């Protein structure tokens, strides 16, 4: 077994732990061109969440990120179908500023301004894939909107990237201090830089999708950035949450750290929205 505590025993025996619900802060949904997904549809994802004890998934739909013709429509449909389990990030593709304008106008038009709390809890940036740096002028309206309304922004970040590497992230964190900036993949590979960003900016959180597979990194991030700055994520339907949980249980960190990562930090971040949306 991969641990002796009750937390580990519960996950090992049951696959989930009632005292340690999981908030998966980085998911997707639907088919995508480069990967075969056996469980890409919404109902399958919900079943996986049930089996792994994932209470809520925040996601951006693959089509919202990769098919400008469809935009965020499929994400909205999915959240409406499972309002107690799903919330979306409004995906931003800066190659189409007119779509961003329309999305932001729709958000502003909603009576629950500054965001539609029963669908979106923030914005999603995927700069590496869209080929436009987070610091580019075309992202500015989205940054400004998120800053003005103190929204979550989940940004894909990757070590060495000229689009969303640590130096670009630093410039954006300095420019938009009221954004709650979640670094998707924690600037993967540039772990020291990720730690430094978390230390330098109180509004930065390190999100752990694809980090769980790199043994030793969890311990480093907990030790140097603090477990109160880390968030659970899986890219679901990409990665099996049980794999991530198994890694979390294997890491030489405390159960308090695991609680922080799985739910406490997310609960704190989402509190302003959870109260409004009834999740």
């Amino acid at each position, binding site marked *: *077994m*991969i*641990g002796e505590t009750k937390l580990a025993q519960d*996950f*090992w025996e049951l*696959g989930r732990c009632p005292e340690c619900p999981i908030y998966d802060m980085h998911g997707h949904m639907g088919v995508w061109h*480069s*990967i*075969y*997904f*056996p*469980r890409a549809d919404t109902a*399958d*994802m919900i079943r*996986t969440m049930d*089996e*792994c004890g994932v209470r809520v998934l925040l996601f951006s739909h693959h089509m919202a990120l990769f098919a400008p013709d469809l935009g965020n429509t499929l994400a909205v449909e999915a959240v409406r179908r499972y309002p107690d389990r799903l919330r979306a990030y409004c995906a931003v593709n800066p190659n189409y500023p007119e779509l961003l304008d329309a999305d932001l106008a729709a958000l502003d038009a909603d009576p629950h301004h500054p965001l539609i709390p029963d669908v979106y809890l923030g914005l999603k940036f995927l700069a590496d894939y869209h080929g436009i740096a987070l610091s580019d002028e075309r992202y500015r309206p989205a940054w400004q909107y998120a800053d003005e309304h103190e929204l979550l922004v989940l940004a894909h970040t990757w070590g060495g990237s000229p689009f969303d590497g640590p130096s670009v992230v630093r410039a954006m964190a300095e420019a938009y201090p009221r954004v709650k900036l979640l670094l998707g993949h924690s600037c993967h590979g540039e*772990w020291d830089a990720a730690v430094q960003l978390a230390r330098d900016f109180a509004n930065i959180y390190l999100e752990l999708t*694809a980090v*769980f*597979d*790199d*043994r*030793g*990194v969890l*311990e*480093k991030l907990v030790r140097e950035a603090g477990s109160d700055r880390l968030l659970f994520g*899986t890219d*679901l*339907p*990409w*990665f*099996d*949450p*049980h*794999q*991530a*949980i*198994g*890694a979390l*249980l*294997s*890491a030489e960190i405390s159960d308090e750290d695991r609680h922080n990562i799985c739910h406490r930090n997310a609960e704190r971040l989402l509190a302003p929205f959870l109260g409004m949306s009834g999740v």
Partner: protein
Amino acid sequence: MDETQLLLVEELPVRFFDCNVFWGLPIKRSLSTISTVDMLLGEMDRAGIQKALVWHIAQHDASPQMGNRLLAEGIQGHSRLVGCWTLLPNQGHEFPALPTFFADMKRARVGALRVFPNSHRFLANAVSMGDWFEQMVERRVPLFVSVRRGMEWRDVYALLAEFPDLVCVICDHGCWGMDRLFRPLLERYAHVYVDTSQYLLDGGLEALVADYGSARLLFGSGFPESYFGGMMLALRHARIPGEAKVAIAGGNLERILEEESL
């Protein structure tokens, strides 16, 4: 599969025999280093891994000959560890002749071989290593090829086209969804296996078992670069019958090693 079948897993003894583990100091310092066999065995105990097919990182980073020696010395006296040596083309007579090599393997309790063609600058094909691969087919000696470290997909395809009966384990195939690359090989070649390290795909284990049966998957962790527990927990809670979990966790690897004759 109904819920009754799923419950069977609790009644079956799942013993983990990890097919993809190394130790030793890499040329570049890593956060995940396991420098000694004692450390490795300690980590296996902590995780609940009964046995492991292991190699030494020097086999890749420094020299197959020296790494193979370090491996043999390291596993000596440790029955939970079975060795996996590294092979090179032998035109330069860097290894003993074939019968001697296989006898050395047996004496050192080495049950499998690896090649790192990109890193070690050769092509793993009939021209370079035909005599070796023919013997491996005949003796059913498994060859491990790592996509992460040293062998590209096109070369794996080419190798298997030349040696369709080779017992070949494709490991470290990457977490970014490689089904479209390894599934054709599973369909075409009866002795191809994939390991689970980096197979993080949600529902991937279940889909593979449904399409190809449980005999084609080997539990591998990728330790020390990955945690033992990640794929252990994924396998434990996969929606597949208990017998399939037992097979994947270690039964398949035991069978493969039993079938070889050195």
